Each structure stands twice: as C-alpha cells, then as structure tokens.
C-alpha cells in the first residue's frame, strides 16, 4: 500500500467499530441484535415492506426515518413491475454488504479507495419455483460477484480486501450457510 500525505479516508469510522469490539469482552450482551421488517400485501404479487426499528446495544433503536420498499415481479411474469423481485433484493443485499465490507477493511488497512464497482449475478432455473421439476431447487443455482476496484494498493492487496470482506460479511454467510427459518401464523 502507498503512503500518501493526506490521511486515508473512505468515509468509514473504523475507530467506532473497533471501539465496540473493544468493549465486547466486558459487555458481551450488547452484541445481541434483532433486525426487523414488516410487509403489507398490496395487490397481486405487489407488496410493500418497511424497515424502521431494530434492537441492539441493549436497547430499542430506530433508523432516522422509515424506509419503504416495493416488491413485485416484472411484466414478463404477467405482473405490474411496481418494484424489483424478492430475489433481486437478495442480490442488492449481498452487493451492499460486501461493498460496505470492502470500504471498512480498506480503511482499517489504510488503503485509499477511488472507485469500487461490483456486478452481482445469480443463476436460477424456473423449473424449481414453478414446481415443474422436483430435482431443481427454488433458489439460486449459483451466485457470482465481480469487482472492479481502483485503489492505492497492489493487485493482491485488493484481492485480499475482497476476500476479507467475504469472510466478515453477514449476507455472504447467510447465503452460503444454512439458516433456521420459522414462519408462523398468529
């Protein structure tokens, strides 16, 4: 990595993150988080999801505003295309999580980023969700992420940023490992 006269600034407050890690040994319970979203059906395959509150650091927490997301399917599925599909939100989440990780790891390693661009793609065989072939799964058959990164670093240092980001990514973990899911009706 190159030493420049201006301090490296990727806009990530690494000190705050390391500060949290520093107090965990004495207060491990503050690490217990709960994330939430709600969803309301609108019509057809269109629904609207909201995200506003979460729990963590021993307390109820709130985003600075209520975020809303339209979810639908495209015209090609005979739907109204009021929003992107649920599986595309998964790609948004993965790309967002990995890219936040790249920025944070770069800051921690004193690497100045100039641009970071990722293309996230997933393959899916519709035989699965249409119930047309029991041997085909509903979900993705594979996911690929391709990064183009311009930074003050060697090619191997940039590869190491991306590898470390995967290693510490929640969404990458959620997608690559099984997670227990319970759904009930009240």
């Amino acid at each position, binding site marked *: 990595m190159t030493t420049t006269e201006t301090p490296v600034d990727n806009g990530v407050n690494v000190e705050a993150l390391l500060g949290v890690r520093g107090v965990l040994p004495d207060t491990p319970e503050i690490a217990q988080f709960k994330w939430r979203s709600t969803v309301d059906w609108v019509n057809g395959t269109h629904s609207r999801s909201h995200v506003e509150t979460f729990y963590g650091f021993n307390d109820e927490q709130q985003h600075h505003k209520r975020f809303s997301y339209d979810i639908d399917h495209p015209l090609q599925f005979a739907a109204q295309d009021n929003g992107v599909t649920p599986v595309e939100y998964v790609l948004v989440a993965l790309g967002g999580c990995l890219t936040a990780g790249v920025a944070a790891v770069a800051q921690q390693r004193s690497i100045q980023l100039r641009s970071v661009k990722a293309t996230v793609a997933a393959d899916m065989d519709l035989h699965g969700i249409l119930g047309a072939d029991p041997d085909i799964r509903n979900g993705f058959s594979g996911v690929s992420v391709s990064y183009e990164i311009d930074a003050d670093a060697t090619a*191997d240092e940039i*590869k190491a940023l991306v*590898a*470390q980001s995967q290693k510490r990514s929640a969404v990458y*973990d959620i*997608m*690559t*490992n*099984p997670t227990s899911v319970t759904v009930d009706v009240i």
Partner: protein
Amino acid sequence: MPDTTTVIVGAGHSGLAMSYCLAAQSVDHVVLERADVANSWRTQRWDSLRLLTPNWMTRLPGYGYQGADPDGYLDAKQVTALLEDYARASGAPVLGGTTVTSVRAAGDGYVVRTDQGSWHALTVVLASGAAAVPVMPAVASAVPAGITSVTPAGYRNPDELPQGGVLVVGASASGIQLADELHRSGRPVTLAVGEHVRMPRTYRDRDILWWMDAAGVLDQRYDEVDDLVRARHVPSMQLVGSPGRTLDLNALTSAGVRLAGRLAGIQDGVAQFSGSLPNVCALADLKLNRLLDTIDAWAGMPGERPAPTIVRTAPLRLDLRSGEISSIVWATGFRPDLSWLDVPVLDRKGRVAHDGGVTACPGLYLLGMPFLRRRKSSLIDGAANDAADLTAHLVSHLDARAGGRERRAS
C-alpha cells in the same frame, strides 16, 4: 502436605522445558504427570504421524538434535523417546501416575490436589497442553446411526475404519494427512474445507520452516501482532512430516480427493456444506503469498510461487443415509482440559485469560499454548524461549514476595 516452590502440571515438552529452566535458577519444583512423560505422544497419535517440524528444529532448553538425519521428521515413538531421554538427562523431578484433581489458591500460594495426595506450592505452571481433548462441532450429534465417527486422537490407521466412503471434516494438518491416508487405502474421501493455512513443504529448495525460522517469522512476539485473538486461533499449517512432500488441496484433488466447503449443518441425515470454499481457498492463497513475500524480502530475491488452489464445483449436500459415507473423521481441532483448575482466571468461553502466559493470579502461569508469547509457541521449538521468559517472571515474583516479607519483618 508437602511443600514446594513450583508445581508444574504436565510432563510434555513444555513442562520439561520449564523444569529445566527452573532448575537452572535453583527453583525447587515438581512436575506432576497423570501417566508417564510424553503421555499424549504414547496414547493419542495415529501410526503414521510424524512431527511437522524437521529434526534440526526439535530444540529444547539444553538440547539440540545431534542425530544423522537433521532434515527428517520424528515419529511419535521417537518423540516419546526423545522426551524420556530429555527428562532423564535434565534430572526433571517428574512424579508420574499423578493426576491433578484441583488447583486452588490458598494463602499466598496454591494447593494442588492429586489422586496421590496434595501439594502446597507458591507458584503453579499449567503445562498440560493445548491439545488435550479433541473438539467436535455440535452438528456431530446429528450424524445418522450406523456411521463410524473418529477423531485424530483416537484414530490409528485405515484398517480401523469400515470400508466405504469417508467424510473428513477439517483441512488443517490432521485433516489433510488423514484424508490422504484414507484415500490411499482405497476409500473414496470427501474433505470438508473451512479456513486453513496453506503451506508448501519446501520453498526454493529448503524446508518452509527453515525460511520461517531464518527470516524471524516464528519469533514474532504476541505483543507485536495486530489481532492476537485471531493469531491464537490460526489453524495448524497444512504440512506433513515427509521430506520434500507438499500435501495441499491441489495435491489432494489431483490424487482424487473430493473437496467440499465447511460442514455447515446436518439436517434429516443430509450434510450441508458452505458455499464459501472458493473464498477460503482465496484467503489461504493470499496469506501464503504474503508469507512468501516476507521470505523473499528477507532473502533479497523472489522464488517460484505455488499455483493457485484449483476449486472445482463442490457439493453443497451429501446424503449420509445413502450408504455413500461409512465413516466421518472429525479433524476439527483440540482444546485444553483445565476442568480441574479452581482459580478465577477463566474468560467467558472457559479459556485461561493470560498475558503471554502470566495470569492475573500472582504465581499462576500457563505454557504451551498457540502464540502464547511468540508465533512458534505452538511448536516444540517455541518452548525454550517461553519457558525462559516465564521462569524469569516467576523468579522475580518470588523475589518480590521474599522482599516484601523482609520489609514487613523489619
């Protein structure tokens, strides 16, 4: 109750190194050993196992290899014989057949209870080993009936396992060696690979450990690393004690071993593997290249780099009820057994909290743990420096205590 200045728990290489250093400082002590010197080398090693470090590197305080094969690797019987000879030559006061049942603070020292009576000691050194008990992940309880499960501590040779496919869980030194041996025995092997430390046996015609030793990599101190928690949990190097032989994932796949991602779960008898195999291989390749960069910088010239790890399409599921898998080898690590330690020095995960082997309880020390004081602390070769450092600390603790007494008396 007999009195001594120091009780050392465990007569492996660490405990014996500590005994040697204490004797050199005329500190009265005993070494309590549940069975015989080098017990785990007698009872917990598979038949083909050899040390990962070459003979010239098998150094202890006052001992260096003098044999005819400095570049060879000792087998378990040879390590046992070496430690027996070392204990004898150094006159270590080992009390064998003495199992420690509790250590607790008493007055200004400790009471060490054993099945052969109790000792009172001013100081105690815990040297019973980092690898006392094999660790199996929680998912092991979900393995369907009829499948044989073994750990590296209990495994001896392929003949003990049923015919048929083997799932080896874990790709550090034990996992890759057992995957290789079981594959050679004619059993189809699937190797579940999580984070690992890729290591060529040789680099530029020398043992990789020669380079790490010469370039000072193994001397890196615990107070010099960025992330000590991480450094203390780095898995063992993918090495086998065989001259010139690199046993990495590429070697295993070209021999016909099938790789899968980390074992992530077992549901309804079906093993599920993580989709993270490409990334754990990328991490290991990048980490190896950083090590080789360090070596090149020290040597002043570049060497030929190993080819990147080849990751083919890996299975995400494996039905353990289909008959394809007959046995599972859990090469998923070890942990210490300090269940008898009744002193409040454990962290919330039950590990001894320490600063380079010095605990918060005055006079209580820990030895023989990964990256205790240096990167080489997990190797036999690391015991000499660590034992010397802890002996210096222990002696100054005794001096300060004696000084305080004199001051109080005057």
